Structure formats: structure tokens, C-alpha cells
């Protein structure tokens, strides 16, 4: 899995469990739900599909599952093209947000259900169900009906039903979103353990960036049907490919400040409201190469410092979270900049005039027009 | 597409039944109406175009039949609903053993038209019946009496439908949130005021609905007429459906019966359209 976490390697064939190639989905009413999308999930890897609601992540999952047909493109499970293969024959199992347990069947029968349709002998079925139930701590609940279970138990039954088939890939559609906050954190950890133990290939859809970051070997960020970036969580966090990713990942989200590029023969600088910042040489070179006049500077809240730096600002709100503080500042033109500080840092107060500084190695530069990352 | 094939296979059994026993006979009525049945069997039928429609629909017998049917509906529908509503309101209270009363009030659901008619026919029988003995006596006897026969049939029908009416009104009543009635009580409304100002307005969709459905049923009433009065005396209870039946069975006049059937359909359609309008209103109330 550490191998898998290295980055987006675009290879076909061996080692790939699920692959989407140039897949699009346009609905009958003309709405394009999914742009051409390419995605390779390696065997044993957990890839999170992350994005706001309506970004196409569930559509992508349903296309992999075979519940929806792509308008164009190729879907592979393993090395097999499955575009014309029915859902039941794709060797994938799915965990639904609503769990989709059959309310009239006991836990035992729910878990057994996918095996029955495949004509597996009774003994083997029983063994498999027992195994799955043991693995998820459901042994005592096998005779109950879903209505008699708690939310967390139902969730585990849904997982057991998915596991019992030993599919080539697990598809999970926001499986934790119906749990309360505490249970969610706990189940998240259990899911990670399960994924490791089974060395299972998982495509995991979520709108929760924390979930995506903590669970995914890689995360794929979608917006409006288009894949924005795919990579290991830390890489995506450190080097967001564009403004959307930059702002979607991280909480509080990345500060963005509009700026003008001022280049002379020596160096490249950017002009911010109330300050001019020299860019370090490699960054400056990249900006110069891009030839953009207007850029957007991005800087994560934890990288801004209130230290009497050259960027003038006024503190407007201080939010204390106990272990840390979020200081909301406004630049001269009203742009909001959030500073994240340790709880014991020098106390700023609302109304204070302060100077902010931004280490240039933590400065992200985006093209103002396209939103694309310009440098480093 | 396979899914489409399966879908057609699934709706096919129903469609075959509908086609053979609803749509085909329905459409054929219009065709049959163009032909006059000869006075003696064996002679060829004679196509007369719209003449038969005009004759039948303006005939004294038809207009009388419509009048009788409307009158029958007027006798049975409002009274039946009022009785059901009254019983439903009375039974809608928390009293020990109220379930027994509810069961009794809905019990006539278990009776059929034939059961109700035979019982009432016996009760009204001038020789053995209880009601004549109690002084409810007319000359000629009730079911042979032009001014009483339809009323007697109507009462039989009201009784037979009472259970259904009660159940309908009860479930409408149960849909009214208790808080509304409690609020009215706290506001100082007396029982009558609560009935008039809260229950009836909130139940009005159910009531309108019951009026329309009840009227449609009333226009299809047949068994009680056939068992109690055979349309008599002198066609005073000759409701439309019974008229169709005798035209078909006794006169063997398919053409005329078909025109009458079309008329029955027309009236039902009218009532259904009214119902649709009311259902829209029902949605409005439900919000």
C-alpha cells in the first residue's frame, strides 16, 4: 500500500483493479453529469472520490457498479472491459449510504443474500456468513431484523454483506454519513483496519474531506463532473492543482489573495493590497514563464504569521477552539485572511492593526483566469 | 431492450383482460347503438344511425329513469354520509370499550346488497314483517307503494353502506391531529362548535370525496332494486342500471341497452371529473 501511495501512475493491465477511461455521462435531459474522466484504482488501494454534492462522484461510482451506463468511455474491472456486463456479474459489491438492508430479512439472511443468488452450497454459505459476521462483531445479532439494530450495527451488516462475496472491489457510497459524529470517527478507524486486513480494493465516495484524507491511499477530487486532481492526501494538500482543490481541501480553507505580477529584469514580485512581495527565484521564473498579469496567491492559515510583517491587516474576529486559535483578519481591500495559531500565541484582539508575513516557500500561485496552479 | 420486453410481458395479462372485457365492449356500445333490434328474433338488425340515440335519450322512460336514479342518489348519499360522519365523531373519543362500538358501526361492511335487501324485504313484508306490525303500514304495502318504494330501497341502501361510510369518515377523522381538537377545546369551543368549526371544515375533502364516490355507486345500484321492487311500482324505482338490465334481458334489445349504457357512462364520467376537481382541492386542504 505504501507503493500505491506514491502517486498517480498511469498504467494499464496488471495491478489495476478498477479503471475508467474517458468515461462521460450525459443524462437524457442533456445534463452532463460526468466529464471525460480517467481513473485507475490499483489492487488493494483505497481511493476516495471527494467533492461537493452534485460533483459526479456518486455517478462515477454507480457507473463502476454497473447501476448506470456511461454515455461513452471504457470501464474495466481487473483487465476485463465491463461496459456490457450487468451489475451482478461485475464482481463488485457496494455499501450504500442508506445501507439498503432488506427490512423483511434477518441479519443472517441479509448477509447470505448475495451468495444465494450465485448458487453457493448451503454449508459454504453458512461458513462465509459466520466469518463475515465474526469479523464485524455481528455474531450475536444474526437473528435480528434490521429494524431492531442501531445505526452502527446496520452499517456493519451492510459491510458484512459486501465482504461476504469477496469481490474484486468494494464500492462505498458515503457509508458513514448516516452515523452520528462520534460513531463516525470510530467506524472510520474500523473501516481502515478492515481495508488493511482484507487488502481490499475500495472506491470510497464522500463529501467529507477529513474522511477522504484520513482513509484514502489516494484521493480524487471532482467538481462539476470533472476530475480536478488525484494523488496521495498529503501531496494534494501540499500542492493543490488548482484553486478549487486548494480551497476544498483543508479547514479552515486556504486563504486566497488577488495580486498583480510586477516583473523587472532582476526579479518577479507580486503586488498585494498594501504590500509588494518578492517571489523566490524558481517561483518567479515559473510565473514569468506563465506570462500571467493577474494571479491569485494562496496560503494556508497555519502558514500565515502575525509578526509585524509587511502585509498590513486588521483583526476582525478571534475564534478560540481551545487547542488553537483562528484569527480572522482583513486586508486593506477587505480580503479575508485567516491565521491559525497555537492557543498560547500572542493574543490579538479584534480591531488591532497588525502586520502579516507569509513565508515565500509556502506561497501558492494560481492563474487568476484559469485557476490553475502556476508554480511550485 | 430486454427491460422493455419484460415490462410488456408483465402488463400484458392485465391488458388482455381490459381489452376484452372493458375497452372492446365499451367501444362496441357506440356501434350497437346504431342498430335497431327487430321486433321478432331472426329478422335482420336495421342500421338507423343516430336515430336510436335520439329516441332513447329523449324517451319518457329514460328521463324517468334518470330522475329516479338522481332521486335515489339524493336520498342515499347525503344521509348515508351524514350518518357515517355522526357515528364516526361519536366513536372518536377515548372511552373504555369504544372499540366494540366501532366494530358494530362498521359491521354492515360484512353485508352484501343481497343480504341487506333480503333482510329489509322481510322486515317490510306486509304479512310477516315487523315494521308493518309496528304501524308502518301503507296501502298498497310499502314496496308496492309509488310514494314509498324508492324510499324503502334507499333506507336499505343507507344501512348497507353505513359501515363503509363510517370507516371512511373515521379514517378521515383520525387524520386530523389531536392537537387541533385540543386547541379548539382550550379555546373554549363546545362540542357542537368543534364539530362545525373544526371537524367539518377539516374533513370537507373526505366528505366531498365521499359524496362523489357515493353518487357514482348510487348510479350503479342494481341488486336492491332487483330484489325488492323490480323497478316498480310502475317504474317508480326503475333506476338506470335496472333499466339497462331489463332492456337487455327481457326485451333482448341490445341497441337500446347500449345507448342506455353510454348514458350511464356519461353520467359517471361527469361525476369522475367533478371528483378530480375536488381532489385538486383536497391537495390544497392537505397542505
Amino acid at each position: 500500500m505504501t507503493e500505491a501511495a506514491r502517486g498517480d501512475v498511469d498504467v494499464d493491465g496488471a495491478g489495476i483493479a478498477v479503471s475508467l477511461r474517458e468515461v462521460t455521462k450525459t443524462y437524457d435531459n442533456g445534463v452532463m453529469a460526468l466529464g471525460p474522466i480517467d481513473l485507475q484504482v490499483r489492487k488493494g488501494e483505497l481511493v476516495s472520490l471527494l467533492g461537493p454534492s452534485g460533483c459526479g462522484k456518486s455517478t462515477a461510482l454507480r457507473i463502476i457498479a454497473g447501476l448506470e451506463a456511461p454515455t461513452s468511455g471504457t470501464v474495466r474491472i481487473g483487465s476485463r472491459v465491463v461496459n456490457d456486463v450487468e451489475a451482478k456479474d461485475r464482481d463488485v459489491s457496494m455499501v450504500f449510504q442508506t445501507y439498503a438492508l432488506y427490512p423483511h430479512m434477518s441479519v443472517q439472511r441479509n448477509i447470505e443474500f448475495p451468495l444465494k443468488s450465485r448458487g453457493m452450497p448451503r454449508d459454504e454459505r453458512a461458513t462465509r456468513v459466520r466469518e463475515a459476521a465474526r469479523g464485524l462483531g455481528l455474531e450475536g445479532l444474526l437473528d435480528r431484523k434490521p429494524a431492531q439494530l442501531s445505526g452502527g450495527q446496520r452499517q456493519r451488516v451492510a459491510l458484512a454483506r459486501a465482504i461476504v462475496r469477496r469481490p474484486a472491489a468494494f464500492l462505498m457510497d458515503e457509508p458513514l454519513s448516516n452515523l452520528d459524529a462520534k460513531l463516525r470517527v470510530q467506524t472510520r478507524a474500523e473501516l481502515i483496519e478492515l481495508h488493511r486486513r482484507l487488502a481490499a480494493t475500495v472506491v470510497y465516495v464522500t463529501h467529507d474531506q477529513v474522511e477522504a484524507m484520513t482513509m484514502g491511499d489516494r484521493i480524487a477530487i471532482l467538481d462539476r463532473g470533472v476530475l480536478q486532481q488525484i494523488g496521495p492526501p498529503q501531496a494534494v494538500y501540499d500542492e493543490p492543482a488548482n484553486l478549487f482543490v486548494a480551497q476544498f481541501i483543508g479547514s479552515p480553507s486556504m486563504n486566497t489573495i488577488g495580486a498583480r505580477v510586477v516583473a523587472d529584469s532582476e526579479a518577479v514580485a507580486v503586488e498585494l493590497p498594501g504590500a509588494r512581495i518578492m517571489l523566490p527565484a524558481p517561483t518567479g521564473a515559473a510565473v514569468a514563464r506563465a506570462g500571467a498579469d493577474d494571479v491569485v496567491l494562496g496560503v494556508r492559515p497555519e502558514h500565515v504569521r502575525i509578526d509585524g510583517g509587511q502585509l498590513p491587516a486588521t483583526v476582525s474576529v478571534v475564534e478560540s477552539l481551545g487547542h488553537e486559535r483562528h484569527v480572522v483578519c482583513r486586508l486593506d481591500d477587505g480580503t479575508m485572511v485567516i491565521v491559525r495559531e497555537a492557543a498560547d500565541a500572542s493574543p490579538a484582539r479584534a480591531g488591532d492593526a497588525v502586520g502579516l508575513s507569509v513565508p515565500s516557500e509556502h506561497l501558492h500561485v494560481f492563474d487568476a483566469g484559469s485557476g490553475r496552479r502556476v508554480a511550485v | 431492450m430486454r427491460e422493455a420486453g419484460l415490462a410488456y410481458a408483465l402488463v400484458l395479462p392485465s391488458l388482455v383482460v381490459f381489452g376484452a372485457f372493458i375497452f372492446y365492449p365499451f367501444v362496441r356500445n357506440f356501434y350497437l347503438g346504431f342498430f335497431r333490434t327487430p321486433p321478432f328474433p331472426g329478422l335482420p338488425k336495421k342500421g338507423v344511425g343516430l336515430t336510436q340515440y335520439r329516441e332513447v335519450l329523449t324517451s319518457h322512460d329514460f328521463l324517468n329513469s334518470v330522475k329516479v336514479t338522481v332521486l335515489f342518489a339524493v336520498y342515499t348519499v347525503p344521509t348515508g354520509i351524514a350518518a357515517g360522519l355522526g357515528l364516526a365523531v361519536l366513536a372518536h373519543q377515548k372511552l373504555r370499550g369504544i372499540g366494540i362500538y366501532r366494530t358494530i358501526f362498521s359491521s354492515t361492511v360484512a353485508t352484501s346488497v343481497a343480504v341487506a335487501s333480503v333482510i329489509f324485504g322481510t322486515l317490510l313484508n306486509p304479512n310477516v314483517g315487523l315494521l308493518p306490525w309496528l304501524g308502518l303500514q301503507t296501502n298498497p304495502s310499502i314496496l308496492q307503494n309509488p310514494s314509498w318504494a324508492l324510499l324503502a330501497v334507499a333506507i336499505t341502501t343507507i344501512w348497507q353502506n353505513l359501515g363503509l361510510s363510517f370507516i371512511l369518515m373515521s379514517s378521515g377523522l383520525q387524520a386530523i391531529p389531536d392537537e387541533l381538537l385540543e386547541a379548539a377545546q382550550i379555546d373554549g369551543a363546545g362540542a357542537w362548535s368543534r364539530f362545525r368549526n373544526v371537524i367539518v371544515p377539516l374533513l370537507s375533502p373526505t366528505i366531498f370525496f365521499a359524496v362523489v364516490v357515493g353518487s357514482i355507486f348510487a348510479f350503479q345500484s342494481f341488486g336492491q332494486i332487483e330484489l325488492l321492487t323490480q323497478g316498480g311500482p310502475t317504474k317508480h324505482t326503475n333506476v338506470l342500471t335496472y333499466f339497462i338490465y331489463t332492456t337487455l334481458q327481457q326485451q333482448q334489445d341490445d341497441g337500446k341497452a347500449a345507448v342506455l349504457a353510454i348514458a350511464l357512462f356519461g353520467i359517471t364520467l361527469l361525476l369522475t371529473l367533478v371528483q378530480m376537481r375536488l381532489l385538486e382541492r383536497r391537495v390544497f386542504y392537505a397542505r
Partner: protein
Amino acid sequence: MRGEAGVTEGRPVRRRFAIVARYALLTVLAAIVLFPVYMAVVGSLLKTEQITSRPPTMLPTHPTWDSYSTAWSAGHLATYLRNSAIVAVIITCGQVVTAILAGYAFAFLEFPFRRTLFVVFIATLMVPFEVTIITNLNTIVSLHWYNTYAGLTVPFLATGFGAFLLRQAFLGIPRDLQDAAALDGYGHLRFMTRVAVPLARPAIAALAVFGFLSAWNQYLWPLLITKNDQLRTVQIGLRQLRATSIEQVNVTLAGVVLAALPLVVLLVVFQKQLVRGLTAGAVKG
């Protein structure tokens, strides 16, 4: 304060009176509703000669079951009841099956003309059966189904109402369940029998009870297409019984009680389904 004391004294008495008054009213009304049935039961327990006695007998002091055995065998009630049961069961099963199939198609399948076909199904509700009897009688005769169970049942084996009711019930099944079943390896037919139908049981029960009730109570159609006691249903049988035992009202009334009894049992056992079916059935129009 003084006034309040008066209220606390007066209230229990007034309240108790109000409760007694309510029971009294309910009991009187219940008696009125039950009166015709009571008289029928009493009449059925009398001897033939007691029937015409004046004043009429209100309490059967020496009840006799003679009229029941007469109605049962000589009056053919046994045959009539059997016929009614056969006819009602066939119609009920037919309606349930066709409604499940069609309701499933409308709820779960995509196909061309789905909306149009659904309108066609609903349109059947607008045609009263009485309107179709002329040609139906011809059809049944030419199929040689006159005076047969087929003639009594086939025209009623499908209803638009049933398809509509079950479509609604099926639409209440979460889409995720259907998707899960598809992934679990279940095609439409198996999803229908193993998931959709079990989950729609309340609606199916309501439809079955409603269908049975309507079939059992049919009058016009069995009257038109049966000609002898071998095929007559109990409703037409009552008519026959009354005609053949004019002088024996007690026998007729015994027949009435026997004819009503199955539905009384049905009402008691399936009260909930019946209520649901009737209130849904009222939508039928």
C-alpha cells in the same frame, strides 16, 4: 377560592353523568345499526309457524336450527357458498397476481409508452362494469363460458385499481434496495418475488381483502350468466332461496345469516387490511 370549591364538588358528578349519557347514546345507536341483523338472526331461529305469529317474536325462547339445515341442503346454500368461495378466491388470486406484475412494471421498469399505458390502466376505472355487460354477455356466450366458473371470473382477473395500488406500494421501496439486489445478483423477477412482494405485503393484503369482498358481493354479473344451482353464487342463491321458500321466511333468513357469516369472519380477522383496502378502494371512483 369559594367558587373553585364549588367546581371541584360539582365536576365529578357532572362528568360521570356526561359519560353515562355518551354510553347511552352510543348503545342506542349501536342497537339501531344492529337491529336488522338481530331480527334476521331471531327469525332464522324460529319455527315456520312462529314466523307469522302476532305480536312478532322478538326473543327466540325455543331456538331451533331446523331452518339452517333446510337452507344448507334443500336450499343449496352449501353449493352456493362453495361457488362463491371458488369464484371469490379465483378472482382475488387473479387480481393480486396481475396487479403485482403490472404494478411492478410501472414502478420499476423503463419502457416506451409507460405513461400512456398507465393512463390506459387508470382509464379502466372510469368505465363502470354495468356499461360493458351487453357485449360481455355475448363474448362469454360465444366463448362457451356461459354458466361456468370461467365466465364468472375471467372478466375480473385484472383491475386498474390493483395495479395502481401496488405501483404506489412498490414506489415506496427505496431505490437503494433495488440497486443492492442488482449487485447481489438478483434480476427483476427474483427481486420481485423475494424483495418487492414481501415488502408490499400490507398493500397486497389490502388489495386481496378488497378484491375478495367485491367478488363475494357481486350481484348483476352472476345473475346474468348463471342459470342453475350448480353455478349460482350465494348472492344469487339468496334470491333463489327466497323465491323457493316464500312461506318459510325463517329458511330465507337462515340463508341470509349463512351468506353473511364468511364476511363477518373475514371482517374480524382482517379488520385492518379491510379498512385499508376500503379506504384505498374508495379512491377507485
